[in-house]
């Protein structure tokens, strides 16, 4: 995510419209993510201390962030003592250059990689490919996206916006296979048979990190497919890419976070593999790159620093009505959904000005967040900053200006609501659902009552003469 290049602002609404127009994909996407949300609820109800765990997770993360330099130094010392090479990278370029340097030192031409949002953030894959490195994404969803030349659309289930027939077509076009056989079992088997040999032969392996334990120097990686453990344990070199916010103080803290992570993410009690890397195997090397890339800046923003607590579970995305109905790719950013809408503007407020508006502010994201980030409050704060900075998406400016004048005047407001009630009752459908009214595009406007609430209240509860005045 380079800040030197000026990017066109993301038009979330326009991109979402394309997604919404495709009924089968939209229906599946919405259903699948809601199913993940419901499975998460089921797990939550099975853990009596769930809310206390969220309090603890939040407090541990806030504490760690407030002492981050100290914990990073502690982690580094531990990791070094365990024989791990520790590198630091101020930004994406430094991260990518470090990876390339390690690969070159080992004459490595092929890299087997498990899922890491940070490497997406650093746009590492295109950089390494320009330098002659062949990268294999080994997580199935991420592999599908790599083969299709798309970014992940969800941080936990990267290809959730695709149907099985899409996957069959992508495979047929890239790694062979029958485009008409869209049986998920056959597709997954094909991915296994074609990805495993690439892992076996890879010169180097790379994983992200879910947690870095300061006390022990351990890197904790939570996955389901076995691909991360193969990518790390097969080649002679294992590179870990980790944001500085991944730190936690104590091993015992994992007892809080591991209990929350997969339950929140997929609605399963734990991931199939919760793996702890604390040093290289005999004859192998292990490297960790600790990356800032905008995190220290965000830590200094009083309104937004707690977004660094995020453990990337995706629950806020699964529960978000806007995300479920617009798809991750419509956010035009590495991080999508509610968490993306509060992270991306920190990198480039002009480019991502539309994202904090891709929310109904219903607060559902905040309610499910396992580390209690006040996501919807931060969305609101970003809206203010974006408006104050004159970065509002153009369509919003006109509407908001009119609304501001109307809401500021009780008389105009009464007039406006009266005419709106009348309009909804008597206007012909074509006008009501025209392009001028964005709200009417995909929704039925509810039937308007004949009477306003104020009028109803005045009629039903007439002022009582002896009512006490405040």
């Amino acid at each position, binding site marked *: 995510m380079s800040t030197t290049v000026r990017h066109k602002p993301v038009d979330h609404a326009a991109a979402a419209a394309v997604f919404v127009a495709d009924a089968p994909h939209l229906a599946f996407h919405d259903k699948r993510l809601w*199913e993940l949300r419901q499975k998460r609820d089921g797990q939550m109800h099975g853990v*009596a201390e769930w809310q*206390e765990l969220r309090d*603890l997770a939040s407090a541990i993360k*806030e*504490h760690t*962030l407030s002492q*981050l*330099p100290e914990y*990073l*130094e502690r982690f580094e010392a531990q990791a070094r003592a*365990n024989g791990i090479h520790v*590198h*630091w990278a101020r930004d994406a370029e430094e991260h990518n250059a470090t990876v390339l340097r390690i690969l070159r030192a080992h004459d490595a031409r092929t890299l087997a990689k498990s899922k890491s949002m940070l490497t997406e953030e650093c746009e590492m894959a295109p950089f390494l490919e320009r330098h002659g490195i062949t990268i294999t994404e080994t*997580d*199935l*969803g991420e592999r599908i996206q790599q083969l299709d030349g798309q970014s992940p659309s969800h941080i936990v*289930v990267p*290809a959730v916006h*695709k149907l*099985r027939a899409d996957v069959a077509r992508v495979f047929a076009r890239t790694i062979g296979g029958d485009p008409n056989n869209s049986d*998920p079992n056959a597709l*997954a088997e094909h991915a296994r048979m074609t990805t*495993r040999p690439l*892992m*076996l*032969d890879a010169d180097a392996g790379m994983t992200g990190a879910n947690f870095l334990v300061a006390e022990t120097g351990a890197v904790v990686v939570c996955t389901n*497919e*076995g*691909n991360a*453990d*193969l990518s790390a*344990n*097969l080649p002679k070199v294992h590179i870990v890419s980790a944001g*500085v916010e991944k730190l936690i103080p104590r091993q*015992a*803290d*994992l*007892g*809080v976070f591991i*209990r929350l992570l997969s339950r929140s993410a997929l609605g*399963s*009690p*734990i*991931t*199939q*593999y*919760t*793996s*702890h890397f*604390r*040093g290289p*195997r005999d004859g192998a090397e292990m490297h960790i790159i600790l990356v*800032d890339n905008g995190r*220290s*800046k965000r*830590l*200094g923003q*009083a309104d937004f*620093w707690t977004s660094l607590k995020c453990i990337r579970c995706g629950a806020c995305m699964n529960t978000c009505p806007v995300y479920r109905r617009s798809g991750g790719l419509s956010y035009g950013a590495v991080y999508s959904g509610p968490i993306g809408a509060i992270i991306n503007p920190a990198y480039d407020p002009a480019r991502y000005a539309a994202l904090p508006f891709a929310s109904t502010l219903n607060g559902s994201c905040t309610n499910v967040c396992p580390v209690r980030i006040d996501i919807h409050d931060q969305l609101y704060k970003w809206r203010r900053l974006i408006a104050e900075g004159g970065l509002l998406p153009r369509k919003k400016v006109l509407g908001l200006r009119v609304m501001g004048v109307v809401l500021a005047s009780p008389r105009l407001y009464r007039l406006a609501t009266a005419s709106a009630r009348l309009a909804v009752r008597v206007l012909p459908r074509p006008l009501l659902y025209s392009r001028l009214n964005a709200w009417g595009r995909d929704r039925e406007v509810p039937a308007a009552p004949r009477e306003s609430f104020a009028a109803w209240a005045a009629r039903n509860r007439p002022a009582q003469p002896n009512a006490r005045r405040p």
Partner: protein
Amino acid sequence: MSAREDILTALRAARPAGEHPLPDLPCFPGIEGDLLAAFQSSLAVMGGQWVRLPEGDALGAFIRARVGDGPLIRSATDELPDFPRVDAVNHPRDLENVDVAIVRARFGVAETGSVFLSDRELRVNTIAYLAQHLIVLLDPAAIVPGIADAYLRPDFADARYVSLMTGPSATADIEGVMIRGAQGVRSLTVVFANRH
């Protein structure tokens, strides 16, 4: 200035205001009673299987009878001297054709159905992923109630690699259809057998 110094300096300058004490971790009541039964039902949720070594049966003969003579078997435990060992390889990839691997877990976790396997138990870490099927020996007396209890044990301290493994490798990345056997083992069977 080095990247390290720059980052640490920037983080120090950005330190959030206010007090943010590190909380003590309470001990939640957790699973009580029959840990073995709880472990079994948790493991089933995660797609794992289990079987109990019948009283008086010899472990080697029991496993031989289950898997037959055909498949390529590798064992990482001293308890099965009649089976070929995993560590007779030069490179971790040399285990790619193993059909069935047998390992002994140090302990299990009832809350999730997980087993603790470190580089000490695995000998070659890839065995638990490259084999098509994994058999995990677990002493029914070595089951802790919860994940939080597992992390209080000293076992993590002397290992360079530990995985809490829970059922076989799995993916639901294509339309949410659950598929057991993604890149790692296709099945994981826990054999409850006392450790001697």
